[in-house]
């Protein structure tokens, strides 16, 4: 039975992706589409031109940040489903700040706006962390509830902004490219895509958070609390303080993701019908990455290919975009139910060794026959 845990998480994750895509293929087949052309159109619309690749990297930006945020909370033993709301607050706070301070030197304005966005997210992360530490309220439910509070509260704030900031009642004016995270160099490099400095921020933040979690006392304490709160407390660490810190960092990263959405991708704020999807997708990326910071890059790239490619599928083949979300959910199902994948691997190995055993027997009998001759 020890064998079952002996397979690397990378192999298990790769197989989960394979099975997830297989589920998608079966669904396409059942609903009358050709899965091969379906997936080819997906890959073409995601990677077919430098513009598309730029958009994939652009889509990756908030996913890397939210996934890193999820991972930090998970290290402390929390399941932060509130990333969406934290992203939304970061988006509104950062973009509002730029809209309200037009004319300020962009070299000061933009960094301050990004920081304000991150802080907005951090506050949204702090609240469930504190509620959990202080009152034992399950963060799973409080973060979900905070998503709805952020969604409706945020929409009301957006609709209530001063008229001079608004383009329509539900949407603010668009920022000038000079007052944003856009950088002509990155955009031109990728055929005019919306790729922006946010991507670099995401990579730097990922590196920084890896360093904090793996190489500093703070990270060590957070992980210790997550692994065994009682042992951590016995060693003199405060479980409460670390829980709050982890959730705040988690929200901070999500808020940063929101800032890149507002200041890098959309350049405005518009009211939402649901809390931003990147929060949930980031959670999926982190689960696929199975606790690895490097894994976030791969998983983030894969999910961005799926989401950008999924947008091109209806036009090319008629497959509704939602198929991609079904595939994403299936991948996470197999990550959660990795026991199944491990069982299959054990079975395959056993069959292999049986086959080898048979071959050996076969050889020996031949050798015996020769000897007999």
């Amino acid at each position, binding site marked *: 039975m020890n064998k079952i845990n002996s397979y690397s998480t990378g192999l298990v994750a790769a197989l989960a992706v394979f099975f997830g895509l297989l589920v998608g293929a079966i669904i396409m087949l059942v609903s009358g589409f050709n899965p091969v052309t379906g997936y080819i159109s997906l890959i073409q619309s995601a990677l077919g031109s430098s513009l598309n690749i730029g958009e994939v990297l652009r889509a990756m930006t908030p996913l890397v940040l939210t996934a890193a945020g999820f991972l930090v909370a998970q290290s402390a033993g929390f399941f932060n489903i509130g990333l969406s709301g934290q992203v939304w607050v970061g988006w509104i706070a950062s973009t509002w700040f730029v809209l309200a301070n037009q004319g300020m030197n962009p070299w000061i304005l933009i960094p301050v706006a990004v920081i304000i966005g991150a802080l907005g997210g951090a506050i949204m992360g702090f609240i469930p962390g504190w509620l959990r530490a202080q009152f034992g309220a399950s963060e*799973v439910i409080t973060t*979900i*509830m905070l998503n*709805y509070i952020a969604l409706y509260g945020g929409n009301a704030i957006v609709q209530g902004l001063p008229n001079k900031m608004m383009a329509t009642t539900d949407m603010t004016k668009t920022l000038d490219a000079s007052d944003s995270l856009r950088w002509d160099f990155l955009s031109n490099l990728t055929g005019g895509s919306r790729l922006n400095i946010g991507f670099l921020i995401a990579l730097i933040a990922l590196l920084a958070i890896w360093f904090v979690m793996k190489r500093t006392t703070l990270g060590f304490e957070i992980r210790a609390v997550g692994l065994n709160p009682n042992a951590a407390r016995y060693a003199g660490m405060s479980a409460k303080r670390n829980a709050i810190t982890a959730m705040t960092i988690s929200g901070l990263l999500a808020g940063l993701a929101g800032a890149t959405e507002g200041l890098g991708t959309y350049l405005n704020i518009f009211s939402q019908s649901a809390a931003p999807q990147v929060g949930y997708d980031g959670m999926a990326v982190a689960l696929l990455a199975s606790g690895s910071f490097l894994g976030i890059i791969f998983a983030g790239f894969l999910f961005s290919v799926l989401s950008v490619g999924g947008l091109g599928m209806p036009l090319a083949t008629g497959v509704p975009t939602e198929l991609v*979300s079904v595939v994403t959910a299936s991948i996470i*199902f197999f990550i959660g139910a990795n026991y199944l994948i491990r069982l299959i691997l054990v079975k395959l190995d056993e069959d292999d060794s049986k086959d080898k055993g048979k071959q050996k027997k076969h050889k020996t009998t031949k050798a015996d026959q020769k000897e007999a001759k």
Partner: protein
Amino acid sequence: MSVETILQLVISSTLVYSAPLIFTALGGTFSERAGIVNVGLEGTMIMGAFAGVVFNLSFADQFGHATPWLGLVAGAVIGLIFSLIHAIATVTLRADHIVSGTVMNLMAPALGVYIIKLMYGKGQTSMISQNFGYWNVPGLSKIPFIGPILFTKTSSTAWVAIFIAFVAYWLLYKTRFGLRLRSVGENPQAADTLGLKVYTLRYAGVLISGVLGGIGGALFAQSIAGNFSASTIVGQGYMSMAAMIFGRWNPIGAMGAALFFGFSQSMAIVGAQLPVINQIPAVYLQVAPYVLTILILVIFFAKSKAPAADGINYIKSV
């Protein structure tokens, strides 16, 4: 507006909004009493809503006024099938309960809208023609004062939901099945030692929650939303889960909490017609149910106790 009309409006809309939450919260109670945390109630409700609306749109001509009731059956069946994913993942495949529940919540809207797009060519269905209207309870509505307030123009499904809550209580606390179900949620090792089939009972808990969650979703869609899209169910599943916790994993408590949540949800809708409340900006009423959920968790969590083995996978030793 007379006091009688105000009370009548508030109570009847509370009942309409509570009914789906009661069904779903009862479902959650069964699942968690068996030791399986079910965050996937939201997804189950979405699939139930999808099934109910599609059934209603397809068969309204044939079944007439019985359509919404049969739509609930459709929701129950699809909810049952959908919750099987959660049961297999958590009981057989030892998946983390919250991860599996999250998968259901990610899967349900995507799958629902995918099928809707294939069936109707758009991401949102048309409005259903047969929905749950209002109903006067025969006899009881004739009682002076109480009759008009409680039993006139009321929601028949809410009274069914309240009745089911008592049935659920009886099932969980007064029958052998209920005792066994609760025992695998409290101490699966001990239950196993006594010869109970832990896995079967846990499957039963999750599947019952699928049936009730599916009914809840189909009911919400056919009494409140009126159509199906990705934003038909917005947090009602989670709210039901909170109601179950607030109700301390007890069917009657869950029902009471669900009534309370139904009340706060309905305020955002009918509040505009009521004196005093119509002075409050809409956004406060809109977020009130969610804020209340958090407050209730904070205030009552310390006092409420989940089943001891809730959320813990039981791995049978061979």
